[in-house]
């Protein structure tokens, strides 16, 4: 039961992007197409899973005062190892996800979950938390990616869907579009939340 709850919370209640407003750097930077959104989401989930497992395993031997620098060392070492292993044994996957790996290092969701969750919970709960948060992050990126690619380029995953007569609003795939769309979505989710609170 508890594991299911830890998994589910990342999707909506504690969604890293829309509810906790974490990981804004990759969210704004690589949500301009559906393909990028999925790539970044999958790569981040992968790293989050690994780092949560490692952190929850070593949580008892980490002195409290220096836990943050130790987490940073563990995470960056882990990201680099994943990058090298992917490049060596799954070159096709590395070609698709490789450009996102350096961006994951600056993703504060990874450190955030290590500090807020994995360092205080069991390994099974940490795995569930990582998968839930990863899925929530991927879904949030996907919502931005679909909107921005559709309006900014008239396509979905590179496939033209809006037809010849649609003039793409280029601003949506450029950086300002990221702020616009993210702001509107954040507003929408806050509005839904407020409505739910009022009715209950």
């Amino acid at each position, binding site marked *: 039961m508890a594991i299911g709850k830890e998994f589910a919370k990342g999707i909506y209640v504690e969604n890293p992007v829309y509810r906790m407003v974490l990981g804004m750097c990759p969210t704004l930077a690589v949500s301009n197409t559906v393909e990028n959104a999925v790539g970044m989401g999958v790569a981040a989930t992968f790293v989050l899973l690994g780092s949560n497992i490692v952190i929850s395993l070593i949580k008892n031997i980490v002195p409290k005062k220096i836990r943050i620098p130790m987490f940073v*060392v563990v995470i960056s*070492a882990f990201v680099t*190892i994943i990058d090298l*292993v992917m490049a*060596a044994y799954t070159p096709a996957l590395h070609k698709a996800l490789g450009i996102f790996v350096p961006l994951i290092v600056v993703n504060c969701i990874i450190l955030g979950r290590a500090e807020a969750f994995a360092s205080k919970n069991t390994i099974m709960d940490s795995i569930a938390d990582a998968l839930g948060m990863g899925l929530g992050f991927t879904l949030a990126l996907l919502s931005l990616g679909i909107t921005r690619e559709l309006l900014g380029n008239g396509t979905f995953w590179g496939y033209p869907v809006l037809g010849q007569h649609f003039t793409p609003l280029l601003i949506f*795939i450029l950086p300002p579009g990221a702020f616009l769309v993210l702001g509107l979505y954040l507003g929408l989710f806050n509005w839904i939340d407020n409505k739910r609170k009022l009715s209950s």
Partner: protein
Amino acid sequence: MNQLWKLPFILMFTTLIAAAALALVNNKTKPVIEQHKKEALLLALNNVSPAGEKGKIEPVLKPDGKVDYYKCYAESDSTKLVGYIFTAFGVGYSSTVETLVGVDTAGTVFGINILSQLETPGLGAKVTEIKYGDTKPWFQTQFSGKKMNQLTVDKDGGTIESITGATISSRAVTNSIYKALEDLEKKIGGFQNKVKPVI
């Protein structure tokens, strides 16, 4: 006082373990990655070679033993020179774009192949984009058949269609090819002039 020494020691120990793990992984993966790179380079070389797949590609070395450029011959045992292949480096928006360029003996571009780039995904990274339904990246194929004086992006008055929203990346690729072609011209002492005299 004891704490003062204990904490840095633990942190140092952690970084040592991390460094050892990284060294180990790097050691194991390096030859495999190099092998992949070699295979990718060979494929890319064949891709842009004006001699085609049957031709022979021979590296011309710099004094320090590194490859300067490649000479392409029509058949594997023939000495008939048909063109050159060289690498162009252009500083883009967020990375150095490395491009392999094949030209014929007149200096006309035969084909280009971008080997590595870390430009912004969705914008500058479109230099390697393959559009839906296509088999080849549209930005790179437009270089084929271009002469040196055509090698500037449309915004600068040239013939290369730049990527919308990514002029810096488009310019980086185009200008680096122009520059590298200029260098090659000096190295080989000028291209063959194929222009027929006007009668």
